[in-house]
């Protein structure tokens, strides 16, 4: 029997774990961005998740929205770059959708991912297929919606798979936004660094839920 849901404190702990994992992934993400962008994605992610970790380490939160918003605000405020706006907006928009809830279940996961996706698309104007983190996020959100009756761990595991598949598909896409845009056809074969980050964020969530 898997985990049905997490309470606010557990979500806070989960996000600490996500932060640690993302910080440790700096080099992986930098290399991905070197291949098709300007090589700073890992550094930005590390900077952002250090700030986020610091922000949520000190505090207790009233509800889920509070903790997700805190992470998003820390990312927006510290990272800069495309990914600061994108991932910050993802956590902020996703968090806001959770209202005053204090238990995060599979329906909450679906609401979080869908609202996060909406926010990112509004912010940056990119669509699925543009070779961005949206290409990992959008299938993950769809999968979470489809499994919103299941246990959180089941829905999350499947969303990670969807994100991972989406990330892999970005190899066959030509970037039309961000620093990778100019690469055109030469971006073929390389996954999008932001899609990789999106997948990792979900993967580290899953690790926590499964632990």
């Amino acid at each position, binding site marked *: 029997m898997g985990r049905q849901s997490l309470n606010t404190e557990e979500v806070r702990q989960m996000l600490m774990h996500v932060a640690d994992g993302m910080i440790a992934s700096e*080099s992986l993400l*930098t*290399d991905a961005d*070197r291949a*098709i*962008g*300007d*090589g*700073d994605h*890992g*550094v*930005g992610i590390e*900077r952002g998740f250090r700030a986020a970790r610091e922000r949520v380490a000190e505090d207790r939160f009233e509800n889920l929205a509070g903790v997700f918003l805190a992470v998003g605000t820390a990312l*927006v*405020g*510290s*990272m*800069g*770059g*495309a*990914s*600061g*706006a*994108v991932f910050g*907006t993802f956590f902020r928009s996703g968090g806001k959708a959770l209202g005053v809830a204090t238990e995060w279940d599979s329906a909450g996961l679906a609401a979080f991912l869908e609202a996060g996706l909406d926010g990112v698309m509004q*912010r*940056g104007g*990119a669509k699925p297929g543009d070779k961005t983190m949206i290409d990992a996020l959008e299938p993950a959100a769809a999968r979470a919606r489809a499994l919103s009756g299941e246990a959180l761990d089941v829905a999350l595991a499947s969303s990670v798979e969807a994100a991972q598949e989406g990330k892999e598909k970005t190899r066959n896409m030509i970037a*039309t*936004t*961000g*620093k*990778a*845009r*100019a*690469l*055109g056809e*030469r971006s073929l074969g390389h996954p999008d660094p932001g899609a990789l980050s999106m997948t990792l964020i979900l993967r580290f969530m899953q690790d926590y839920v499964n632990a």
Partner: protein
Amino acid sequence: MSAAKKILNDPRNAAAEMLDGLVAAYDGEARKVGSGSIVMNGLLEGKPALLVGGGSGHEPIYHGLAGRNLADGAACGDIFAAPPPGVILDATRAVHRGKGVLYLYGNYAGDVMNFDMAAELAAEEGIEVRTVLIWDDISSAPPERKKDRRGVAGLLMIVKIAGAAAASVDTLDELERIATKARDQTRSLGVAMKAGSIPATGKPTFELPDDELEIGMGVHGEPGVERAKMMTADELVPKMLDRMFADDLPLGDGDEVVFFVNSFGATTMTELLVVNGTARKILAERGIRVHDSVLGPIVTCQEMAGFSLSFTKLDDELKRYWDMPCSSLGYSKM
């Protein structure tokens, strides 16, 4: 290739320490605002404000273009990363003198999103913000998709002209109009020979074989449009100018331009001058008159080797603003 030998302190802190050193270099003419901005002291009252900005690591731009008759302030991000909205908002408040603020910066997804977020926050505070995006790099998209083009070295002329206008005109409308015109009349094309590296990682931003160069590479080392074997200035410059003349800005007999030969970092002034010699012969053959030349490493990408050519086609109004004196770390004019 062995890593560049850089004199820094904690490389992850390079952007912050750079900004402190920059503000110090203004000797009291400018101050630090918030955590990431430089703003000029003693701004003229009653004028629309000009705010520029972008990622650090391209020094002296953008922040080194804060100056007299130049940008009123600049919001700096970390190395190669657009500044966060909060940083931009702090700078916006500091440069605003009741006549609105023009955001003028390079067209990169990250910059657009962060500056837009700041503009929304500024609007909530009643500060009117307009935006002119710089998209002078002809290699990054065809003329029909100008909005997909990156902002590169031509920003120098655009900021210079907009800065002179900001000190002269009285309304944000006028400033926006003139900056837009300068932007529309500016084109750039770069070539790279060797990558620079981000201080925090020490890793080159791209790989290029020892005997090759790449035309159209961006100022962050973004890939270009043509790889070729290393060649001479007399072979390379005509190739580049041909691409520029083929773009949608008509340039011909009797037209006047500002011509800018920019080094990305490690390319020497000796080379820029040789390149200039070649280029000027070609411009002269076409009857294009160079009203003023700028040469040097102004829009850089760390220790990247390479250079870019830029021109701004002048009319009487743009020329008047170009000719105004200005003073900054990055560019000064008597």
